[in-house]
């Protein structure tokens, strides 16, 4: 593992110079490297372990667990798709060589995070991943430059808390090794220490996966990063955060650690705290996504909400909830990647991300539309796409535990997701095609093939989810989370929950049959006359177009409804408190503090320096004498 990771890291630098000659070759090498890594994941044996090197006298350990396999598989799926997508897409970019280099570097680093066997290795790879992705972000729109800074700072806030906690652990147990630390933590008598460490470690995951208090970077970073990279950001990078959250809540035996702190339904209060944060993110993400006009920011907020789902699922400390949360990682990764790639395709052709400037692209970009459609079906959790299964599992856990408020929030997020995914669907792809986009074409095959492949995978996993449930069940078994129900019952084609089961194959077949019946009825009755959406269309001499209340409208833009879609609902919370403003205030506070320091100590005249010198003298003497 070590050699592979390091050679991929080295290759990334080489890719930069190759890309300087021809970025296309660089992109192809990237894709090949991605494909190699994908295959490589399957050749590795679960449980194998390797030493990467030594740092500060501690061995840097790489271990390959079921969780590593699952998370890196999901990551590689997304990254590979984006790498293939980028082969063509990069020609719209200003910095293709740097993009190639950092993308590959980030890939290696994120795999390193998943492989890490100890806290320090995880930190090192984590920082490399953050650094390389942070350098890709500002290649996007103008606002992206600010986004990169906010991303770096938020991420670092979490990471440094994590680092602090790692060293706290090290100074107490003399060990960074995750497995050892888990054992030590379980037996540690000091509750304040455990809670502190737990929360500080989780902070990294919270910052990275966009959970509530540190979620604001997602909007700006995902919304402004280079379009295809947003797919990686949302589909893969935030999953690093989910991985850390999974480590601290499930891999560390929190139930045992926090015995006696149970708050409700046998969930310890620190876990419950995280769960509450997750639930808050669902609300915040959903509400904010509903009111966005920028389609990428909309999906960025949806990533906040879905990160919340993942956290809620994991933090329930219930077998089915945990599996649901982990499966949601897969589902959301795929859905978000497809959506962002679809958006990248749209932007590739139209050069805008504002929903209000688009419309009717379905007639120009049908494949992109179909990809987006299936992705939102998955994102909204509607069968037969895979997104439903994970949401179903999370609901099962919440219902079983009797957590009605959280269940309410989960339902709210789910229904709310219908609202916000519909917004780009209607505003970008459906409706009237503005005149300026009448020459827009579908993106080339190399760009839509990865999208469609991901759609196919998501679809197949929705109908036959048992292959993807297998590693998750193995993970659950590794972490020994109760109750041990067998969720995937492949022999009976059943997905079992604690409160019932369902058969995805039957549901899918029923849908097919229903569609067939509908089609039969459709063909049975008179053939329709094709009507253009707006332009008077002369067929048999009669102009027939859509109903316009008896008025002639010749400008499609006037007849496109894509702004303020939920005005009535938005009005109910337009005066919401903004967390972004709070963080801005904090930022301003530090800035003002800097100004104060600057003004007090660093600017005054020479006589003031003499004053300060005397003051120091006096203080020192006063203190020491």
């Amino acid at each position, binding site marked *: 593992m070590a050699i592979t990771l390091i050679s991929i890291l080295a290759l990334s630098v080489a890719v930069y110079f190759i890309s300087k000659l021809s970025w296309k070759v660089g992109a192809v090498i990237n894709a090949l490297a991605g494909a190699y890594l994908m295959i490589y994941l399957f050749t590795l044996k679960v449980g194998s372990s390797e030493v990467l090197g030594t740092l*500060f006298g501690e061995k840097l350990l790489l271990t390959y667990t079921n969780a590593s396999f699952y998370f890196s598989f999901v990551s590689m799926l997304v990254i590979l798709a984006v790498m293939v997508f980028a082969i063509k897409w990069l020609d719209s970019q200003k910095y293709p060589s740097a993009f190639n280099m950092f993308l590959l570097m980030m890939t290696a680093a994120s795999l390193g995070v998943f492989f890490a066997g100890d806290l320090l290795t995880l*930190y*090192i*790879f984590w*920082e*490399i991943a953050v*650094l390389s992705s*942070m350098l890709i972000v*500002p*290649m996007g729109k*103008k606002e*992206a*430059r600010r986004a*990169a*800074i906010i991303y*770096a*700072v938020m991420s*670092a*806030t979490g990471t*440094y808390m994590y*680092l*602090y906690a790692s*060293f*706290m652990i*090290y*100074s107490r147990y003399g060990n960074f090794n995750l497995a050892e630390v888990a054992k030590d933590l379980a037996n540690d008598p000091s509750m304040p220490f455990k809670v502190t460490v737990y929360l500080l470690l989780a902070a990294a995951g919270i910052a990275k996966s966009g959970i509530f208090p540190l979620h604001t970077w997602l909007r700006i970073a995902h919304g402004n990063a280079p379009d295809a990279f947003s797919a990686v950001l949302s589909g893969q990078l935030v999953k690093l955060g989910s991985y850390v959250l999974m480590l601290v809540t499930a891999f560390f035996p929190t139930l045992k650690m926090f015995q006696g702190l149970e708050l409700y339904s046998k969930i310890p209060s620190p876990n419950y705290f995280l769960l509450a944060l997750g639930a808050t993110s669902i609300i915040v993400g959903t509400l904010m996504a509903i009111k966005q006009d920028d389609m990428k920011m909309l999906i960025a907020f949806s990533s906040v909400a879905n990160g919340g789902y993942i956290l809620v699922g994991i933090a329930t400390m219930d077998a089915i909830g945990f599996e649901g949360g982990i499966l949601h990682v897969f589902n959301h990764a795929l859905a978000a990647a497809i959506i962002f790639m679809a958006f990248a395709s749209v932007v590739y052709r139209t050069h805008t991300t504002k929903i209000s400037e688009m419309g009717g692209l379905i007639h120009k970009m049908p494949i992109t539309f179909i990809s987006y459609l299936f992705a939102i079906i998955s994102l909204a959790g509607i069968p037969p796409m895979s997104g439903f299964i994970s949401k179903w599992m999370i609901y099962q856990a919440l219902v079983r535990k009797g957590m009605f408020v959280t269940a309410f929030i989960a339902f709210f997020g789910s229904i709310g997701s219908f609202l916000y995914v519909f917004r780009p669907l209607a505003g970008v792809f459906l409706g009237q095609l503005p005149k300026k986009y009448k020459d827009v074409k579908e993106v080339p095959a190399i760009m839509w093939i990865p999208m469609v492949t991901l759609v196919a995978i998501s679809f197949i996993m929705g109908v036959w989810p048992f292959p993807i449930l297998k590693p998750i069940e193995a993970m659950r078994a590794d972490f020994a989370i109760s109750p041990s129900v067998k969720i995937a019952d492949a022999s009976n084609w059943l997905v079992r929950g604690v409160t019932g089961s369902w058969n995805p194959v039957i549901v899918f077949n029923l849908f097919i049959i229903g569609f067939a019946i509908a089609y039969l009825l459709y063909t049975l009755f008179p053939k329709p006359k094709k009507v253009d959406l707006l332009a008077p269309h002369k067929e048999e001499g009669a102009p027939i177009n859509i109903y316009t209340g008896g008025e002639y409208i010749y400008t499609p833009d006037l007849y496109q409804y894509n702004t303020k879609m939920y005005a009535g609902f938005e009005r109910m919370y337009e005066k919401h408190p903004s967390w972004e403003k709070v963080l801005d205030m904090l930022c301003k506070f*530090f*800035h*003002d*503090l*800097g*100004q104060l*320091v*600057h003004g007090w*100590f*660093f*600017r*005054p*005249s*020479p006589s*003031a*320096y*003499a004053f*300060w*010198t005397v*003051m*120091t*003298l006096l203080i*020192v*003497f006063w*203190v*020491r*004498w």
Partner: protein
Amino acid sequence: MMTLAIAIPLIAAFLAAIRKSWGYILYAIAAILNFILSLSLIGAVPSIHALGGWKPPFGINLVLDNASFYAILFINAIFLIVAVFPDIIGKYATVMLVLMAAVNGFVLTGDLFNSFVFMEIISAAAVIIASKRENYYSAFKYLIFAGIAGSLYLIAVIFVYTQTGSLNMAQAAYFSFSQKSLVAITTLFLIGLGVEAKLFPLNGWVMGVYGGNDLAPVILSTAVTFSAMYMMGRLMITIFGGGVLQVLYVLALITMLAGELAALYQKNLLKTLAYSSIGQAGLVLAVLSKGKEPFTSLAYFQLMNEVTAKLVLFLVAGYLVYKYTNLNGIFKSHKVLGTAFSIASFSLVGFPLFAGFQSKLRIIMEAFKGGDYLLPALLLLATLIELTYLIRWNVRLWFEDQVEEGEKGSWRHGFVAIALAIFLVVIFFFPNIYLAPASKMADAITSVSGYINIVTSGLGGM
């Protein structure tokens, strides 16, 4: 041999004063000679040299132990690197030569009054250097400060003399002061050195001087700071052990936070970096003030990393700031300089793959081992702030829309900057390049008896 390190630049300075046009060439020759000389001194460690045959504690003596050896090696290396840039040195070759001589003397000397003299020379030379590009007001402020600091330093020296009857450092180290006089002496020394070491609140001059021209930060933030830090360790730990180290610890932490906060506020690239170097100095001083191994070695390790990174940053920044008026997106035309700048700033922040990671994480780790939970927390907070403004600058210089047409860059800057930057990456993988000298320095600094032994045993031989 040791005297040559002071003598060569001094002679060169005289020559340069006579023939102005030979200035740069003389500087280059002196720098090369000095560097070779300091390399060749490795065989002479440890030894002392009594000037004029007056034996310590009566005469002035130069001490070459591990600490001073590595210090002058490092310092002369920096002078050598600066020698690559005739355009930066310009008309200031003479002053630079004087500075070189003074810094070498400051580091090598084993006599308190002599160190005062060298410090005054350093201040004088530094003030002249600071006044480059008509930066007179800042230079004047610096002058005032250096004057106050020098007089306090002198008072401290007088204190020591009245107590011990000698100006020799080894003698002072041997002498057991009463607690009260120790505090008085160390406080005065602290303030005297604090100016050069950029200790809060004596660092008001830094922003104006570093931010005012391209020569001052390059040499003052590296060589002079290094010598001041060396002397800080020597005086505070070796000679007057104990003393006001706790006060230094608190002041250093404040320095760190204050510097970083002010840097966050700053909108000028050079001034930002100036504040950043205040913050870094605070970190080094805080670690140094622990007064024992392994903190001392980590402090010097961090100092070396920081100085290397800062050298790159100031070289690049000084070059660009005076070439362009608007720096937005300027790295698009100066890719090599930009890469070096980015690597150096990432190293400063402490990202993995870069040198700063090694030293910062070690500091945190050792602090935890020592049961100090405050230093890591503040260090991480300061790092967070540092990361904010350095990323901001990186993003601005790389990605903003370019306003000014980029010109062809200077290959000297590019070569030196990228070489140093690559060196920073190399240090991540092989930290011992810096860590081994640093720990040797630290050993020498923390061992009082070792120092006294060197001086006393050196009495016989020359």
